[in-house]
């Protein structure tokens, strides 16, 4: 009997070196860190270090230039200058991205619901259709929209023919065009997380709700929507964050009057070569997005999705 117990606990089993167990335990303890290592290194090299570098750049003394070299300083005034000069662009970015996110949600939720709950055997095909735009590049897709919305395109011609719409009506180079472009380009980022959470939704819960006197509208408000909140939060974040930093849509579908903060950062870095200001704007954008996301996630009450 004692021998049996000894074997079971692995203490003195013949043929098993006694030190084997502690080694295995050690390995188990380290395995999470080993799994984190590749991604961690990548982030350190390509995110943390450049961010530190960028933070330094944003505090350069702006009296220098690329030719003469910059003096590392603590010129927090760069941030004030950036806000003073470009607060309309920052605000516009938040507003455009916010409107585009809401439109994406309004279009994407029914779409994701239909694919997840009603599409049956068409489900996979419909998902491919959602992702299909990704098969061409962002730039080409946006250029295609430029020709669709252009002043001598069929769409505008048709709309001008309608009553109540004047001959000087145009789509291109308006805020509407930029927001349309954002909605189009970021819709899949909204649909896919929504689909993932609606696909998991148990149809029996909807039946239980109907059985318990809930009308279809009440069932949606009390059961479907709360259970798909993780998807809503993930989808809005994945749409809002890149949309707020986007500059291609404003560049191709808008005019300088529609330029977003991304356009300003782009031209500060590449055209005006004002590195400290561009870096300061980048951090301002990051801070704006972080603050808005935290406020939003607090309200949505699901910190665990971030």
């Amino acid at each position, binding site marked *: 009997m004692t021998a049996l117990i000894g074997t079971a606990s692995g203490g003195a089993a013949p043929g098993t070196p006694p030190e084997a167990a502690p080694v295995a335990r050690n390995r188990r303890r380290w395995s999470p860190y080993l799994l984190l290592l590749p991604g961690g290194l990548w982030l350190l090299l390509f995110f943390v270090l450049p961010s530190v570098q960028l933070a330094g750049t944003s505090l350069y003394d702006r009296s220098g230039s690329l030719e003469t070299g910059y003096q590392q300083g603590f010129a927090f005034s760069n941030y004030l200058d950036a806000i003073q000069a470009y607060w309309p662009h920052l605000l516009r970015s938040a507003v455009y991205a916010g409107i585009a996110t809401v439109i994406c949600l309004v279009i994407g939720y029914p779409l994701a619901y239909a694919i997840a709950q009603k599409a049956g055997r068409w489900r996979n095909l419909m998902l491919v259709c959602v992702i299909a735009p990704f098969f061409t590049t962002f730039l080409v897709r946006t250029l295609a929209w430029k020709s669709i919305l252009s002043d001598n395109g069929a769409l505008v011609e048709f709309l001008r023919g309608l009553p109540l719409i004047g001959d000087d009506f145009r789509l291109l180079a308006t805020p509407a065009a930029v927001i349309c472009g954002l909605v189009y380009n970021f819709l899949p980022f909204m649909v896919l997380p929504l689909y993932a959470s609606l696909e998991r939704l148990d149809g029996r*819960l909807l039946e239980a709700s*109907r*059985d*318990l*006197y809930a*009308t279809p509208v*009440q069932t949606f408000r009390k059961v479907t929507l709360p*259970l798909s909140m993780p998807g809503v939060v993930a989808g809005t974040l994945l749409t809002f964050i890149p949309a707020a930093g986007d500059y291609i849509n404003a560049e191709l579908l808008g005019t300088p009057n529609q330029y977003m903060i991304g356009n300003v950062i782009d031209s500060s870095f590449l055209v005006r070569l004002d590195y400290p200001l561009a870096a300061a704007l980048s951090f301002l954008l990051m801070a704006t997005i972080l603050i808005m996301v935290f406020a939003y996630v607090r309200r949505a009450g699901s910190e665990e999705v971030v």
Partner: protein
Amino acid sequence: MASDLVLNDVTKRFGTFTAVDDLSVTVPQGSFFALLGASGCGKTTTLRTVAGLEEPTSGSIWLGEQELTGLRPYKRPVNTVFQNYALFPHMSVRDNVAFGLRRRGMKDVAAQVGDMLDLVQLGGFADRKPAELSGGQQQRVALARALVNQPQVLLLDEPLGALDLKLRRQMQIELKRIQTEVGITFLHVTHDQEEAMWMADTVAVMNAGRIEQLGPPTEIYEFPASPFVSNFLGQSNLFAAEVVGKSGDDLQLSAYGERFAAPAARARATAGHVWLGVRPEKVRLTEPGQQPPADHNWVRGVLTDTCYAGVSTEYLLKTPWGQEMSVFSANQSAGEPLTPGTEVVVHWYPSHSFVLQRPDGHGEQPAPQYAADPLGVAP
């Protein structure tokens, strides 16, 4: 009757498959009614047509004077306890139970919810989420969530199927207690014959979308209406026999050259081809060398298998005409069970026999074998 649940010629087809086939049944108000059948027999579909989660292809459903057919589920005064409970995972136990009341516009529901949680003995669990409860506790929440609405009929769709045996027994007793306490009609769907017999006042045995037999559990067990029922509810030994005459209150039967007797009052057919049936626990074994009592039906056989199950021993034996027969023998004495290969004579009171109709051609081969417990879940 005020609010009996009545199904009139209800048929439900899915494509070419007929799940419920022209079913008519009346469930009296306040009764505990069990729909018993193997999976795929249409019992859950029947329940769902009452709940309004399926519309019947034809036929109508009435609750007293009110027609239910065509009403949306949320307009029907019935509630369901779902098979896997379908509790709302994002709500506390309290909000789950209050769900139905709130949807009907009631504001002050705390007292009712509290009373109902006390009834199912979950008073202290109101603030938990369903995921923090055990299977048995979730089951009670599902029951409370349905009962709190005081439906006229409570529909139970295999409510105990996911529980382990001991918990299932406990919940069966509790369900019965609650039903007596609240007096609501319970329509209970199950594939577990013991559960149905244990709890229900009336059992309807379903097969292929139809009700094969309906009645109190004792009646269905003691005098089944068809070979299917005789082997779905418990087990039966069936012999292909012919009615050859009558003496007094007994039918005289002949099977495989042997003579048997059965009371005419326990015969579904009194002439021609019949099945002679007897339950295994009604049959007694005679040890080798002993004679069976003179007026008993008896069959000679060789034991092929012996299963000792504690309270009883189950014997399988082979008759001279090659049919298998089972005999349950209560272990009342301390003797060793008989070993396979022993030649025995088994016998039973004629009054324990029952006689079923046998269509022409059936039973020329050995009796049909029905699985007594097709899903293998009954204990």
